[in-house]
């Protein structure tokens, strides 16, 4: 006991010390920042993404730039690649765009046509005029094709011509990574100078046949593994002479034409008929494990970013080769690229441009290329040893990346690139990863969904701006009328001075909540309700929102298949998760209510998961757990199911149609600790006299449970069910991290779809409408549960 209390005191002291230190540390930094703000009049905000290595390079560059330019203060923000878009868009929506930022290729047509990014041509011209031949040589040193990729002509909607919107910081062509050992053992020549898909097919067959050799006993060897997302899938379509869109523009989807069909059929055949190509099921495994294991002959198409990762491989030798092609004339390489750009609304355009130039072509360019993630934009560096033989990476044919440059084809994407890429990403898996429909049917489905989106009434340009002035005026008028009405009514009722004083004090005490309610709930709700009748990209200021009346709601109910899909997924999940979680919670609580030793440990063990179940860590963890090959769940189930001659499902992959939702349910049951603690407390609150009386009346354990325990717990169950429904309807982080809605929308949860509409497809008004529909559904369900439970819930001491 004394030890325990000593430990407790020590812990408390440590906690106190940490708090004191934390306040001191934060205070010190605030002072430092405040003083530096006053020394440097020009403030530039820079937003980018990147892992730690890239982050520290950008940081070093920024520090150096600040040293060289003492009047500039740079605030650097790195929200990480996955959250970059939502961060950028919240900043744009709030009217505080960053001055300089990374420009993702797929959102750049949209940003350019909304005039949110600034053309750079004038600044380059000015710079050349001032700097002369040396400066001109610097700009000429950029690979022209990468510069062209950042030209956009708003009139034609095509990339490649028009004003320049960004200065490239790096790019990469696509290649296949090969396992040299497997190629050698299978007797396949490494195709450094290119190969056809027929060569590829033969190589796959030879390598997969290694599974039968004694050297690989117990291992399953595959010839190749494709990693598809819309960009890399397009690369393969190109190499068969196909494409997403025909000459007729972005309405002309050509997935059903021979080239694309041949490619899709080829992929399907190798994966499902020949089975020489590994079918990674769509929920890509973190770290691309298949290749690391040495069981995969080649993997791709990937850019250069994989080389630093694969540098850690020690169990086999690897290299890079070109992507195969069907016919010689079909050779085409995809390009992945990123640029620095500047906001059209920056207050310091000249300073911003200077910074962009410094970041792209300054002293950092060599460091960037040594990272090994991409090809530097400057020819002089790309053809230098800094690129060709980066330190820390085993020697490989880095030149293969450069060899693909002449065959680069620019990717044309519609203005709503994000909708298109999402659509292809989700839907194509139905044919290519799940093998549920024919490739022709799949192509037709994609085309139909795309045209459905393009024909949406919301896309017409006939809407008038929202009359915010009118809205503000009406709101003020309604509020004023309401206050006056209340005031008059309050005056009419005669109250004694004491009552009046009590009333005033009462309101004073609840004032914090009243302020919070008006500022953080009611006001924002009204604003979002208004937004739900508008069309607003969320990137332009709110004043530019267009009024669409009920069109958002009509679209939702009448035309949006994803709305119904997300509703279906969520309802299935809620219907399974809520009852199962409550039953588990009650069962565990009852077990713990039997006075056992070590209860403290059990309580902690069962409660702690509830803290992380909805966090990024929890989701990443469970995603690994459900991995078909390496995950813990199937590792445990396999021996259990083996005697019955079955194997466990590929939860989030091939068997996702039926097993993905149960996988999420299982995870939610794991996180049921909060409810369990409450049930435990509830059980402890049931008077023992009730059980004694029941025993005297001859009731056994089972009857005691049904007639005493359950009724006494019923208010709690009711409460937990309501909160459980509300919580389960809002599942988001798990879905986002574990499956991102896929495959084929089998895990497209409602809030995930809402988030996509708001932050991926820029339909803030539509997202607001979705949020309101969710609110109404929850309200309706709660009322329903209230009604339905009237006779089921027992309230002790309820006064009629």
């Amino acid at each position: 006991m004394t030890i325990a209390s000593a430990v407790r005191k020590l812990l408390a002291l440590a906690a106190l010390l940490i708090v004191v230190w934390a306040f001191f540390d934060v205070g010190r930094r605030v002072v430092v920042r405040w003083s530096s703000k006053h020394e440097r009049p020009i403030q530039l905000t820079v937003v980018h993404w990147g892992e730690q290595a890239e982050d520290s390079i950008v940081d070093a560059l920024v520090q150096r730039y600040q040293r060289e330019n003492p009047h500039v203060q740079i605030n650097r923000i790195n929200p990480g690649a996955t959250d970059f878009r939502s961060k950028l868009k919240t900043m744009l929506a709030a009217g505080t765009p960053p001055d300089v930022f990374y420009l993702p290729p797929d959102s750049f047509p949209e940003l350019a046509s909304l005039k949110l990014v600034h053309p750079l041509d004038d600044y380059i011209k000015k710079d050349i005029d001032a700097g002369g031949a040396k400066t001109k040589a610097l700009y000429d040193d950029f690979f022209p094709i990468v510069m062209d990729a950042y030209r956009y002509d708003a009139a034609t909607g095509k990339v490649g011509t028009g004003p320049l919107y960004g200065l490239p910081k790096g790019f990469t062509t696509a290649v296949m990574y090969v396992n040299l050992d497997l190629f050698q053992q299978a007797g396949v020549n490494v195709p450094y100078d290119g190969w056809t898909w027929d060569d590829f097919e033969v190589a796959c067959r030879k390598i997969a046949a290694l599974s039968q050799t004694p050297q690989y006993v117990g291992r399953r060897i595959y010839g190749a593994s494709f990693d598809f997302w819309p960009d890399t899938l397009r690369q393969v379509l190109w190499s068969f002479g196909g494409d997403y869109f025909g000459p007729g523009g972005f309405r002309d989807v050509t997935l059903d034409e021979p080239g694309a069909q041949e490619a899709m059929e080829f992929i399907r055949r190798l994966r499902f008929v020949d089975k020489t190509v590994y079918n990674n099921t769509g929920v890509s495994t973190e770290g691309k494990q298949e290749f690391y294991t040495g069981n995969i002959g080649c993997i791709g198409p990937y850019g250069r970013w994989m080389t630093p990762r694969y540098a850690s491989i020690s169990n086999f030798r690897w290299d890079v080769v070109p992507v195969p092609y069907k016919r010689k004339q079909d050779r085409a390489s995809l390009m992945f690229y990123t640029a620095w750009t500047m906001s059209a609304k920056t207050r310091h355009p000249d300073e911003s441009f200077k910074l962009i130039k410094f970041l792209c072509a300054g002293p950092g360019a060599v460091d960037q290329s040594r990272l090994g993630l991409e090809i530097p934009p400057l020819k002089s560096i790309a053809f230098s040893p800094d690129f060709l033989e980066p330190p820390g990476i085993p020697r490989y044919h880095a030149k293969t990346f450069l060899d693909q440059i002449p065959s680069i084809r620019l990717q044309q994407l519609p203005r709503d690139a994000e909708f298109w890429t999402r659509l292809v990403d989700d839907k194509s898996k139905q044919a290519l990863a799940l093998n549920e429909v024919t490739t022709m049917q799949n192509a037709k489905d994609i085309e139909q969904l795309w045209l459905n989106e393009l024909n949406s009434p919301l896309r017409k340009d006939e809407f008038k701006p929202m009359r915010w002035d009118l809205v503000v005026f009406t709101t003020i008028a309604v509020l004023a009328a309401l206050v006056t009405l209340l005031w008059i009514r309050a005056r009419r009722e005669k109250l004694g001075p004491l009552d009046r004083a009590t009333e005033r004090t009462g309101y004073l005490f609840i004032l914090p909540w009243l302020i919070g309610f008006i500022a953080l709930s009611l006001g924002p709700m009204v604003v979002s309700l208004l937004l739900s009748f508008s069309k607003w990209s969320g990137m332009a200021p709110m004043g530019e929102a267009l009024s669409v009346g009920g069109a958002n709601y009509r679209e939702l109910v009448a035309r949006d298949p994803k709305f119904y899909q997300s509703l279906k997924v969520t309802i299935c999940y809620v219907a399974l998760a809520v009852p199962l979680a409550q039953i588990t919670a009650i069962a565990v609580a009852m077990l713990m209510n039997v006075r056992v030793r070590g209860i403290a440990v059990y309580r902690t063990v069962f409660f702690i998961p509830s803290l992380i179940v909805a966090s990024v860590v929890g989701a990443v963890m469970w995603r690994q757990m459900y991995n078909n090959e390496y995950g813990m769940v199937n590792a445990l189930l396999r021996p259990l199911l083996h005697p019955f001659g079955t194997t466990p499902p590929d939860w989030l992959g091939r068997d996702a149609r039926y097993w993905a939702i149960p996988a999420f349910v299982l995870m939610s049951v794991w996180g049921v600790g909060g409810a369990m603690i409450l049930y435990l407390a509830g059980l402890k609150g049931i008077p023992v006299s009730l059980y004694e009386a029941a025993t005297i009346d001859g009731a056994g354990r089972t009857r005691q449970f049904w007639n005493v325990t359950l009724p006494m717990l019923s208010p709690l169950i009711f409460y937990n069910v309501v909160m459980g429904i509300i919580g389960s309807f809002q599942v988001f982080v798990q879905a986002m991290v574990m499956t991102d809605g896929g495959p084929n929308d089998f895990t497209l949860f409602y809030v995930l779809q809402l988030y996509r509409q708001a932050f991926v497809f820029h339909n803030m008004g539509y997202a607001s409408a979705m949020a309101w529909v969710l609110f109404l559904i929850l309200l309706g369900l709660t009322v329903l549960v209230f009604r339905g439970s009237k006779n089921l819930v027992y309230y002790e001491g309820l006064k009629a």
Partner: protein
Amino acid sequence: MGQSPRPVIPAQTDPRRPKYRSMEQTSRLEKITAYTLLIVGSLIFLIPFYFVINASFKTEAQVNAGDFIRPPAKASEVHVGNYPRSLAPDKMDFWPALSNTVVITTLCVIGQVVSCSLVGFGFARFRFRGRGLLFMIMLSTMMLPAQVVMIPVFILFRTLGMIDTFWPLIIPMWLASPFYVFMFRQFFAQIPEELLEAARIDGASNWRVYWQLMLPLSTPVIAIVAIYTFLAAWNDFLGPLIYLNSPENRTLALALNAFRGEYGISDVHLLMAASVVTMLPCIVLFFAAQRYFVESVAMTGLKS
């Protein structure tokens, strides 16, 4: 599932005789069954933690090859160095993130306890017109999905010039959350009126009644509210993501997110190590407080 505190059936408070089911009532067989089930259940619940902790001691190559399950065979296979490496400035940059998180969490806990107890007291102990209606409105705001109000609230804080400061994370906590107000109200409503009357007759003002009588009485509720607020603030991800910008303002949850790179997670083993360190205070806190905690929940009492 929400992990917020839920209201609970009131306990009758008569400490002299045992009122609840006790050991005497459970047979030997039942106890053995309970033990067995509890141990098996705990093991199942602990599997993911084993997974994380095991992975946190592996090398990058092992983790990349899907080697998560096998425990290390010998001491040299335990890579303790993952921990200092994951916390280093070029990875997670742990210490500034820790001080930021501690400051935010501390201010949130204080704010939540103060504001919720004030409002709960107001709702429980003062008659004013509109009280019932306002209370119902307050409860119904619990159903409001955060997504409904996210953007407008962001615009509000931007107008106040509070972006990239801790204030947008702290201020809402000083404006009372419905959940905890509800708990305080239910607790304060149980306290006999005579006690308050006696204090008032002695000349205590409403403020003093709150500060010197009600607040000290409500330690069990304060404990729950404090712990839940601590956990929520410590683990909050979306709030810091939206409102904080500069790297030096990052919280632990954001710093963890830095492991998620452009092309997936680069250092899974380091991420796992960092996650263990980040989770540890929560586990220690709950373990140290859990007995008190469960009793508090039982004592708080609530009826819908």
